[in-house]
């Protein structure tokens, strides 16, 4: 159940970020980028997020998960390819090992949408 741990990390990260902001912003949406080649199941994250944010400052906040595909680069063929997860990872043309992963290992909070009262949003000089 590492989705629970990941969600805990997510909540703490957003909390730390909020503490640095002025004007009490209200978080509306959290955007995650989750690679296809990670041990994280997006549906599990959605479930854990809904459960673990109940009664917290993130209750009701929308979680948007952008999945990125596994893309590898073959240096011998000088081109990208999409490994077939569970079946084939080596380059389909020259069989070179999947050494260079270009996408699919992401596990990050990419951005946060938030709102705050207009008066407080004016930067102070």
């Amino acid at each position, binding site marked *: *159940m*590492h989705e629970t*741990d*990941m969600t805990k*990390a*997510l909540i*703490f*990260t957003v909390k730390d*970020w909020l503490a640095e902001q002025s004007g009490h*912003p*209200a978080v*509306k949406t959290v955007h*995650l980028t989750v690679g296809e*080649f*990670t*041990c*994280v199941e997006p549906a599990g994250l959605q479930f854990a997020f809904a459960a673990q944010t109940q009664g917290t400052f993130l209750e009701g906040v929308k979680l948007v998960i952008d999945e990125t595909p596994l893309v590898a680069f073959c240096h011998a063929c000088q081109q990208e390819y999409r490994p077939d*997860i*569970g*079946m*084939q*990872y*080596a380059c389909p043309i020259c069989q070179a*090992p*999947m*050494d260079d992963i270009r996408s699919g290992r992401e*596990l*990050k*909070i*990419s*951005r*946060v*949408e*938030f*709102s*705050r*009262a*207009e008066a407080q*949003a004016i930067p102070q000089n």
Partner: protein
Amino acid sequence: MHQTFDAALEMNLLHANQHGANENRDRFNQWGITCLNLMSSPGSGKTQLLEKTLQALQNELRIAVIEGDMTTQLDADRLRRLGVPVVAINTGRACHLDSKMVAGGLHQFSHEQQPESFDLVFVENVGNLVCPAEFEVGEHAKVALLSITEGEDKPLKYPIMFREADCLLITKMDLAPHLDVDVETIVSNVRQLNSKAAIIPVSAKSGEGLTKWLAWIKQAVANRTQIA
């Protein structure tokens, strides 16, 4: 009136765990200890291989074990019988060790022992082929075990573990004659994902491959600063 804003965070979800792992590794380095993280599915033979390894190396290296087990002390007790200091971490329902749990283990270790007098710490992770691969604990190298009874396809099905490993031990080789498993296929499946790992077929029972495995450990200890 409310305005909507957008802030780019680009913050890794494993940032906190990674930070803790780096702190653990710093402590190991200060103590002059090499840490190896052993990972595999349940029943692949981690504990038995550790028993043999500890017996073989006890005159050359001072070794301790951090033992992750979901609820019991069974594995820890087996290793304590060899006179090796064991810190047992019951992970409860968590399916992997994380850097915070290992930091707790190191705290206990540093109170019970003199860490500076040790050369090597094995972290025996919770038996699981999925989660431990994503959670670094402060190790200098990752060792994955795959017993030949698990089948040739496991590296393809659980790719992250086998991609992350610095050393892969194919265990229970003494059973090979009784099985329709092709070790070459296991090796080529691992090689699709990982061109660099040392791959060593071993048997704790017959002793096959143990010399190579022990040599790999000694090299890891010698290279600690390089492989960190």
